């Protein structure tokens, strides 16, 4: 790990070597702290290892602050509180489970032993365990593609509707924003009602039209459509809000200039409007993709994974929580993390390339 703080003001003294034992040598503190933490988390009982990790974190933090203060590395000082909270609440638990993924451990049993990469090999290739993982991954990919593109499209179209100023805009906008404020439990449970073949509105309407018995959720296509519709309905407003913010930030005189220059609507969109919303679209895409990978609650509520709608995140809940196969779950989650990282990096790479081209 290399990290070198820069500042507008030159450092007042040279930074210490990595191995120098000084109060401001945060590099050594991080290395030592991490090593100590991982060691403690894996070997000592939880109640002891927590304190070891706490001490390590405090040591790193102290070294960090002393160093930053001495050299006026304001960047480090500013970032430190957030990193500290993230480290304790998020990064440490993540490292803990990363560590566990190399052990055979079930949380409801008291034994633990090191197995190296066996968990990963198991979740990816084992005759019994792997097919479930792979099909859940394929389904997840399907959901990510469908729900994210649906959200991006619907969100974009809604934003276009609201781009202009018109009477009552404010009141209509809040109506469209409301779905994302609902709790997933409530909206998911109500979608089971909307889709219910006996009581639901959808079947009532469809039956009245076709005269038959309409059952949305009895096929994979229907079940996927039902889940994607509910998810996209809830989260398109998120995309819309970001896109709308981009749209309203386009200066009006650019559109006037385009009118004077007799620019076609198509060209106007791509050369003027799109550059203003591209960054926001990317942010929306990034966060919605990450969330779509975690899609589980709606699946649990609407299909319980039936009709081949099992997602990796729900699968993970079953493995890690219901069946207590903690380390196997950790391995699956890190495989999943790897995929999300690859995908998001691909987005960012493409976005940056586009930036540099234009």
């Amino acid at each position: 790990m290399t990290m070198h703080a820069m500042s507008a003001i030159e450092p007042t003294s040279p930074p210490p070597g990595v191995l120098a034992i000084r109060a401001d040598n945060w590099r050594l503190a991080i290395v030592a702290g991490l090593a100590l933490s991982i060691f403690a988390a894996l070997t000592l009982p939880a109640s002891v290892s927590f304190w070891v990790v706490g001490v390590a974190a405090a040591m790193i933090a102290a070294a960090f602050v002393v160093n930053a203060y001495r050299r006026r590395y304001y960047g480090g000082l500013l970032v430190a509180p957030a990193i500290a909270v993230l480290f304790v609440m998020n990064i440490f638990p993540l490292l803990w489970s990363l560590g566990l993924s190399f052990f055979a451990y079930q949380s409801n049993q008291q034994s633990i032993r090191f197995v190296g990469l066996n968990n990963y090999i198991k979740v990816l290739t084992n005759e019994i365990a792997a097919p479930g993982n792979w099909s859940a991954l394929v389904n997840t990919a399907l959901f990510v593609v469908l729900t994210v593109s649906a959200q991006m499209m619907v969100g974009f179209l809604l934003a276009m509707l609201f781009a202009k100023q018109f009477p009552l805009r404010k009141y209509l906008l809040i109506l469209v924003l409301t779905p994302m404020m609902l709790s997933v439990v409530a909206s998911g449970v109500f979608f089971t009602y909307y889709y219910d073949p006996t009581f639901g509105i959808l079947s009532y309407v469809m039956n009245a039209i076709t005269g038959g018995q309409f059952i949305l959720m009895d096929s994979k296509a229907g079940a996927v459509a039902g889940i994607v519709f509910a998810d996209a309905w809830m989260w398109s407003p998120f995309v819309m809000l970001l896109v709308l913010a981009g749209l309203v930030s386009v200066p009006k005189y650019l559109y006037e200039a385009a009118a004077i220059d007799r620019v076609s609507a198509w060209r106007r969109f791509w050369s003027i409007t799109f550059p203003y919303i591209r960054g926001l679209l990317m942010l929306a895409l990034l966060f919605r993709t990450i969330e779509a990978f975690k899609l589980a609650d709606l699946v649990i509520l609407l299909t319980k994974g039936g009709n081949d709608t099992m997602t990796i995140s729900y699968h993970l809940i079953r493995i890690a929580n219901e069946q207590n196969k903690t380390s196997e779950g950790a391995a699956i989650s890190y495989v999943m993390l790897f995929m999300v990282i690859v995908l998001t990096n691909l987005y960012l790479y493409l976005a940056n390339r586009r930036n540099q081209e234009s």
Partner: protein
Amino acid sequence: MAYGISIWERLGIRKSSGVSEAGWGHTAFVALISFIYFLPVLFIIFTAIKPQGLALSVPPTLSPTSLLGLIPEQFVFTPTLENFGSVFSRVMTAGSQPEATGFDRFFLNSIVIATASVVLALIFGTLAAYGFSRYPLKGNDTYLFIILTTRMLPAIVVVIPVILMFRTVGLSGSYLGIILLYTAFNLAFTIWMMKSFFDELSTDVEDAARIDGSSEVKVFFKICLPQVVAGLAATFVFGLILTWNEFLFALLLTGPDTRTVPVAMNQAVSSGGRGTDWTLLAAIETLFLIPVFLVTFFLQEHLLRGVTFGTVKK
């Protein structure tokens, strides 16, 4: 598309619209779309004021009013406020008196926990975003990406170590614990959003202030922060919406005294020895929607003006 700005708008004599005015025709069209989009929510709200027995009626009852005979009688129900009362107090065991459900406490918990954690995340996140933006570390983008990865895994992965940690330090079931956890949960988004805002600001004014001898603290508070108020509002709303409805951590890390509404809401999903109590669930959700709806409504202007940044940089 968008021409029509006039000098009067620029002078503020006429209210500047941001983009051009469209007329009532457009309003009618958007109203129709918005209404359709809002229908599932409207149905939940209507379910909240339905008599319990009509929740699953076939055909579904759709409206508390016949709109002067426009809606056929079979789709109309007589509204009641009884369900809202049931949220706070209802009969729990057959034949006994109504008991308090504790929902007043759960609502209070939700408000306290969500507000505190979003504000904390905003403070830490804004500081960090300012740091990342103005004093970039070597490998800045890598750090930002690592921060983003904390949002990439399902909560279930980190739950076990977090419970363990909370028990060890006695944070289990306390406000502080869940607030800190939510703070971390919100930090990634806050940092990414706020950094984008800071990146968009011109640094000229800050540099001028520095040359005039303003301290770094003063530059941050007096120059930078006022310019991103809109961004803070936008981030606040997004963070609030996400935290408000968080379920898994709340389930596992709150006790009976600190339980939040999304967890308690499941009482109505499997209610009193049966399946979903539709009207009760709808009433809880409707009440639960109000605070975040109001906050969003009043910060709406900021949401639109606020989120205006250029590109996502890695």
